[in-house]
């Protein structure tokens, strides 16, 4: 391991804040600062220029979605910093608001994922390296949204699964690993999905995530 990823953590609850920081340290990350409110979080992100900011949504000063807005500010102002939001809300709207029109360096996980070290560390790394990591449950909600005359209904169960994994922000390799199939098989599925959904192919992961998310939110 070369240099550990540098992280700033934001959460207004001291117990959770300490817990999350602890888990991240245990996972080998370098927690350089913590913040108890959204204003402080932005300030510390500017000061420390960490690799990733991990933050809660509901925080002071307004105690509404201040953490989410702080995350958006940081993404806009400091695009090199990855942002991972730990949310208690299973709402596609928040995740999509966070992603906006750039699917790189961004993640949205439900808060209890801090209990699953593998998912958490994987998400932090992907976000740090310009990838994206959306919570499987949130993605499932988007893919599962029922629509009339929905082309998604034409997908096979496997293809639906691949579509969800693409939305989560996984690479072809990542999808292949997850499904325990070959990358070539994954690519075949993807071709089929893009044809059925009439989506334009794009080689680049981030653009693909954005295209898929936009399709799901149409």
């Amino acid at each position, binding site marked *: 391991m070369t240099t550990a990823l540098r992280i700033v953590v934001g959460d207004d*609850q001291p*117990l*959770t804040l300490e*817990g*999350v920081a*602890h*888990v991240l340290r*245990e996972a080998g990350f370098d927690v350089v600062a913590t913040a108890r409110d959204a204003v402080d979080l932005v300030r510390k992100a500017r000061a420390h220029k960490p690799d990733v900011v991990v933050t809660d949504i*509901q925080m002071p000063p307004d*105690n*509404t*979605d201040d953490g989410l807005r702080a995350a958006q500010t940081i993404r806009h102002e400091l695009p090199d910093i990855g942002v991972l939001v730990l949310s*208690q*809300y*299973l*709402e*596609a*709207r*928040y995740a999509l608001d966070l992603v906006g029109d750039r699917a790189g360096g961004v993640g949205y996980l439900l*808060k*209890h994922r*801090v*209990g*699953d*070290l593998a998912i958490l560390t994987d998400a932090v790394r992907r976000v740090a390296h310009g990838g994206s990591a959306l919570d499987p449950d949130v993605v499932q*909600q*988007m893919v*599962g*949204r*029922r*629509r*009339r005359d*929905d082309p998604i209904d034409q997908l096979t169960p496997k293809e639906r699964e691949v579509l969800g994994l693409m939305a989560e922000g996984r690479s072809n390799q990542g999808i292949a690993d997850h499904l325990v199939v070959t990358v070539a098989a994954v690519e075949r599925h993807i071709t089929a999905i893009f044809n059925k959904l009439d989506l334009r192919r794009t080689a680049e992961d981030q653009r693909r995530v954005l295209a898929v998310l936009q399709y799901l939110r149409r």
Partner: protein
Amino acid sequence: VPHAVTDLDGWTVGAEDVLAAVLQSVAQPIWVVDPEGLIRFANPAAVDTLGYAEVGELLGRHSHETIHYRRPDGSAYPASECPMLLPRTTGETVARDVDWFFRRDGTMFAVSYVSVPIAMPGGRGAVVAFIDIEDRLRAEAVLHDRDAVLTQDQAALRRVATLVAQGAEPAHVFSAVAREVGRLANAQMVLMSRYEPDGTAIVIGAWGDHPLRAGARWTLDGPSISATVLQTGRTARFDDAPEGPGAIADVARDLGVHSRVGVPIVVDGRIWGVVAVGATDRRSLPAGIETRLEEFTELVATAISNSQAHEDLRRLAEEQAALRRLATLVAQCAEPRLVFDAVCEETGRLFAATTVNLAHFTPDGFNLTIAGWSLRKVHVPTGTRLPLEGDTVNNVVRRTAAPGRFDSYEGASGELAARLRRLGIRSEVGAPVVVEGRVWGALVAGTDEPVPLPAGTELRLAEFGELIATAVSNATSRAELVSSRARIVQAADEQRRRVVRDLHDGAQQRLVTAVIALQLAQGRDDLSPEVRALVDTGLGHAGAAIDELRDLAQGIHPAILTHHGLAAAVEALADRAPLPVEVEISDERYPSTVESAAYFIVAEALTNVAKYARASTARVTARQDEGRLLVTVEDDGAGGAALRPGGGLAGLGDRVAALDGTLSIESPVGAGTTIRALIPLPDLT
């Protein structure tokens, strides 16, 4: 000449003696013409009437050349054409009703004559008897003139009566009367005025070359003819130029009026008004004109009385009916706006106003137009907010807290007066709307006619002002009730949000912390397999508890509703729904109580759709509709749904009712279900 005798009742008298005596004494002028046409005899009456001193001046002169030589138009009158001399040749008697003779001094006079043939020694002569008919002709001429005047008067009266019978506008009738009177009296100035209770008079009809026109109000001070008529109750006449101050006197002086007659218009025993006539020449207003004007005003008064009595009755009935209708509306607790509009329209029609407005006097000194009606869409628009300053009836009413009037906005100050002028409103009456002892506003009726609304209209308007006050105070207490119920709903919402916040800050955080602790424990190398299994189980339960708690919090009050509003929250519901749900809601934010009510209605409705409707799709819409939020949830399912007491939707109906809204359900069997909620949005004014 044979000696004849005549018997005078037994007395034998010489006939010639009798004849001579009769001719000498009779007042009838008589003369005798011989066959040559020369005068042979003339009695004293004839000599005198023809202007001669003695008979000698006439005897032997040619009759025609002496008294009959010209025609009345001055042309020559040859003797050969004279019928008076005809009996000499024809032997027939000739009679003329009208002819002209000349006196000695050459003057001409009218006569009536008879010419009778008489046998004379040299042939036939004629005896002419005539009478002076000058006086008779003069009398006839006078009579003829009088007939002409009477005919003229009757025609004028008939014209006016016809107008009245045709139901012409009073203003039209009055101006016609003024014109007729002006012509009849050959006057320079006619003013018909109505006496007002406040010591003024209003011109209701005018005629002549002067600036006073119907609608002008003037004060009855000074020795004017109209003031005199009012004081005495009788016809008055002044044969001089008016003296003293006053607009009327100035106008009369300008016209050079030297003779004035005023005749009262008495309606139902009361001095209602006056017809004043002025002329520059007193011969224009001859003695007797008063009688003619009185006859005239008598008819005018009758017409006014008839129309007024009829009008009064009709108006009273209409007024009572309108009051009853509006009172019913108020009692039904109809929306104040409805009541306001109805009152404006009813009073407008009732009082024949051009426009009626309801103004509210705001606590910060503004005049806010709340409702309005107008005959020709010319009222001050609803929502107009102007400072309460300047000359308006609104201000008069506010100051006095009593009905009032403003008879001319000509030259009145302030923006409201200027607007009224631009709209053509000339005068207004107003009545206060008093709510809980304070002048809340005014009900104001205006007209674009030159004649202001009749005296007393403001008092009658006051009854409607009271109805408005009742409606306002009903609405206020109702609004208080609604707002207190809304406060309860709001408090309940707030409580739900607090519960959710507490869950998030407390239980959820602790569970997350527990998960983290278990996670850290799981990372340890020194756990026995049994303990590791227990930690795994603990992690699983804690994770499930977090999920369940999240769903619970979402059900109590979803954060997304608070954070992002109705559209986002309903989209979130659609994300979870087991059937396609189309959502048409704008991102607009509404008051939280409204958003919550709308959200929970949609949530409950969608739950029901999923459970019972056997629908393939549902559609949710929300949009603003006349100050309310209209929410609909429709599906294409089996229908037959109803609001069951105690059911989830019925509970939401109560919640909507607390916000003064309504919830309805339409669900014909086999044709889907539509749930519709109307939730009032708080008034932005």
